[in-house]
């Protein structure tokens, strides 16, 4: 992969892995919980994020990133779905992104795509999407941690573990972080609808 594309793709991989490691720790019932009145649940954030990614990156280079079939407002409608259904939605969004990015090489980044009828360079479109994605993954992790409370399995350097981490000289690249998260056997709590 070209170095510029790789730098962005690795960050996407990091945030995908973070989101999945957070969702893995929750039961179906917990996915619908909101932290405050009127706040979004993890289901709502995932629905919005995946909807955005699927729209932006389906036929990425040949059609407008805001697809006529996308209903953005509907992404924020309260819904209660199983974790299985949630992860299907998640994969549709991420699948579109990963397929599109996987076909890019560095010279392509100076070409343009169209989003909401505006021309945008591909590198800028990817950076915008990374910003949006990292922002919402931050919220998913925050909410998951809030819901799991004491049972939370840490997704980065645990509190008090920095010194040991520094001594080991660990690889802190986005790729290594994603690999570390994917290799964790993070388990949901014992009672979940999706486990049956």
């Amino acid at each position: 992969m070209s170095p510029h594309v790789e730098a962005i793709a690795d960050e996407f991989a990091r945030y995908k892995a973070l989101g999945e490691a957070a969702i893995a720790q929750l039961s179906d019932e917990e996915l619908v919980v909101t932290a405050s009145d009127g706040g979004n649940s993890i289901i709502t954030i995932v629905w919005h994020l995946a909807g955005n990614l699927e729209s932006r990156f389906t036929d990425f280079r040949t059609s407008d990133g805001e697809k006529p079939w996308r209903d953005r407002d509907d992404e924020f409608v309260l819904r209660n779905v199983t974790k299985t259904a949630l992860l299907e939605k998640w994969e549709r969004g991420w699948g579109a992104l990963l397929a599109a990015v996987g076909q890019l090489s560095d010279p392509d980044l100076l070409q343009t795509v169209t989003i909401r009828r505006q021309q945008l360079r591909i590198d800028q479109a990817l950076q915008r999407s990374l910003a949006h994605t990292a922002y919402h993954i931050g919220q998913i992790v925050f909410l998951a941690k809030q819901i799991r409370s004491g049972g939370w399995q840490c997704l980065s350097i645990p509190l008090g573990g920095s010194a040991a981490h520094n001594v080991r000289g660990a690889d802190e690249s986005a790729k290594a972080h994603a690999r570390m998260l994917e290799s964790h056997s993070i388990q949901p709590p014992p009672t979940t609808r999706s486990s049956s």
Partner: protein
Amino acid sequence: MSAEPSDQNELLFLIDTAYNRVSWHGTNLRGSIRGVSPRQAAWRPGRGRHNIWELVVHAAYWKYVAWRRLTSSTRGSFPLDGSNWFVRPQQITLQAWRADVALLERMHRTLRDAVADLEPRDLDRKPLKGKTTRRALVTGVAAHDFYHAGQIQLLKRLAPR
């Protein structure tokens, strides 16, 4: 594609939109703490959870780490003892809160200057003892700002006013 001077401007644009320049996606890190009081910044959503104040100092620390790796500098150190997470606040005062916001600002400026000084041909090379390219390092630290800005927005919603 070999790195071109415009690549550097794109990286500067990326870290600036993540920090304090109008951002398409919504609130950036500096925007997320605008108008936050020391009491709001110190509020924790639960036992052992980080507050806004700690997220701010954590973001400052990782800007420092990125600067240090970019420049392979052996000089200078983060002004606070420790690494990664710092227990905050020591005192809930406006002065203490402003001092830590100023620390974040200073670390961002220092990092920004280092990115501006990079040789374009070095962007896709790894710094000495580094495990990622300089471009990846800068992209990562920008995404880190976005990630925590999203969390601060939620913390503000939850914190009692």
